[in-house]
């Protein structure tokens, strides 16, 4: 903990993340505007006192769209990573613990999944199902578990030779109990790092999808689909592009800084 506090960038990142979270949760209180309400009188107005981030093509207030969009983007980020972690931990633990042909098959499965460019896979699946928020969460999670699986497997391979595992086996503990109670809690550290970095990645993926029009569908705001409008109003309304993008940038940056800080703490090595 103390070591974390020493890393000033990490603390700043954490503060920023919490701030965005608070913003997202308190969205209705913060803005006077309903993000969906259009106002044909103030179409594409630059940032002003009434609309601190300006308005979009339909006269909607950008600031409130960003704040409400934070809810969606962050929710997708967290849940997608949650799904990826669940899948990854399960597969990695089973492969690592049982070894042999189960391990071989599961790891070949990982290799094969890694052959598909993630975006291709996501787009292909979403083209088949409709792009609802839930589908997006699931598909991002279902294509992002491979790294976690490998990490968990590696940890379990080293852990399972340790004495406390042999002791548990001798005492007749069931496999599932050993895996759940003893192995996984000890293998958690790299997963935490991966998950934190993964939230950043999931937010980037979701925003790319929404930008391309196959993610969160308007009128529901997400940082990505606000930028979709920005594309067509490029030269005219810079605020449509700059603000949501900056939010994405700084949020993802914070998660990356946080993740790297966690990694430094959990993997002590000679620092210089």
């Amino acid at each position: 903990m103390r070591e974390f506090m020493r890393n000033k960038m990490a603390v700043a990142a954490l503060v920023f993340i919490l701030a965005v979270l608070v913003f997202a949760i308190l969205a209705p209180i913060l803005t006077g505007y309903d993000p969906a309400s259009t106002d044909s009188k103030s179409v594409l107005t630059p940032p002003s006192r009434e609309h601190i981030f300006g308005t979009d093509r339909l006269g909607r207030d950008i600031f409130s769209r960003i704040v409400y969009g934070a809810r969606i983007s962050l929710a997708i980020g967290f849940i997608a990573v949650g799904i990826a972690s669940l899948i990854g931990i399960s597969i990695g633990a089973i492969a690592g613990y049982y070894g042999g042909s189960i391990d071989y098959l599961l790891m070949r499965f990982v290799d094969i999944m890694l052959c598909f460019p993630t975006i291709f896979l996501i787009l292909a699946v979403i083209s088949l199902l409709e792009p609802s928020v839930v589908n997006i969460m699931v598909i991002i999670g279902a294509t992002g578990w491979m790294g976690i699986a490998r990490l968990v497997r590696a940890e379990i391979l080293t852990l399972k030779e340790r004495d406390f595992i042999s002791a548990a086996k001798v005492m007749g503990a069931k496999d599932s109990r050993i895996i759940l109670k003893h192995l996984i809690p000890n293998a958690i550290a790299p997963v935490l790092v991966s998950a934190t970095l993964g939230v950043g990645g999931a937010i980037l993926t979701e925003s790319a999808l929404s930008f391309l029009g196959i993610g969160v569908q308007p009128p529901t705001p997400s940082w990505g689909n606000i930028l979709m409008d920005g594309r067509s109003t490029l030269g005219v309304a810079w605020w449509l592009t700059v603000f949501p993008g900056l939010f994405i940038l700084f949020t993802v940056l914070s998660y990356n800084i946080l993740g790297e800080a966690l990694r430094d703490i959990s993997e002590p090595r000679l620092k210089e």
Partner: protein
Amino acid sequence: MVKYIIKRILGLIPTLIGITLISFFVIHLAPGKPTDVQTSLNPKVSYEARQRLEKLYGLDKPIHIQYVEWVKRFARLDFGRSYLDDRPVSEKIAERIPVTILINFSAILLTLVIGIPLGVTSAIKRGKLPDKLATIFVFIGFSTPEFWLALLLMNLFCINLGWLPVSGIASLDFESFNIAGKIIDVIRHLILPVAISTFGSLAIISRYMRTEMVGIMTQDYIRTARAKGMDENSVIYKHALKNALLPIITILGLSVPGLIGGSVIFESIFAIPGMGRLFYESVMARDYPVIMGVLSIGAILTLLGNFMADIAYSYADPRIRAVREEAEA
């Protein structure tokens, strides 16, 4: 060496089979018949086209026969015909692949040319200003949405400054240029896409170089080199660097899927007629055969990329090369 390559190629087969399995699974993900989804969404699709699609996927037959049919078509790279214009999918992909490969290849080259020195410098000047600046650059590189960067750069260079063309791969009067003019024209069109593609992998490569170099500089054999009286340049650029470059080969192989996937975004933004844009258009139009075709080709390209990296690595690392040669002897 040849025996080793053949062995490796054989090892690819299970993975290829796996790819066919996964893609087959994806086809059958949609509720109802795969043909329903796009045909109902796309009223232009004729009855004949729908029939043809059903025959293509053998939907009238039991599922294991369907799979065998799929594998047979996969092996021939026959993905049927596009819904939009009824042309063979493989033909459409073949005409788009060169551009995508050109851009990604250039991006890889640039990444290496810039990223390796960047990483080495970061490692040498650990903790000092160049390292801190490089680290900031790398973190921002990891965190920036590529499409946003593309929009901003496009706004700056194409619209505001007018230095570079907004879209496409060639200007309207391309044919009227001489050879040099044509080359310059293509380059001008591709600068931004290549730059965007490079930006992301640059961060990864330079960061990895830095970590590798820092780790290597503490190794015993570096101390031996210094104890022999070698100057610092030799120590860094001869002894350390050669060791650090080996894992980079592997990383390059691993970054292929990311590069291919990324091309969807910037090819769409810059209207480049490449495979990524083809994929995006077919997704929007639910042009099913093309979607599956590009998905499969993408996976194959990744497999190829990893394979080449693997071969290159086992040639470059004397430890592995010698083991192989002994095994073959």
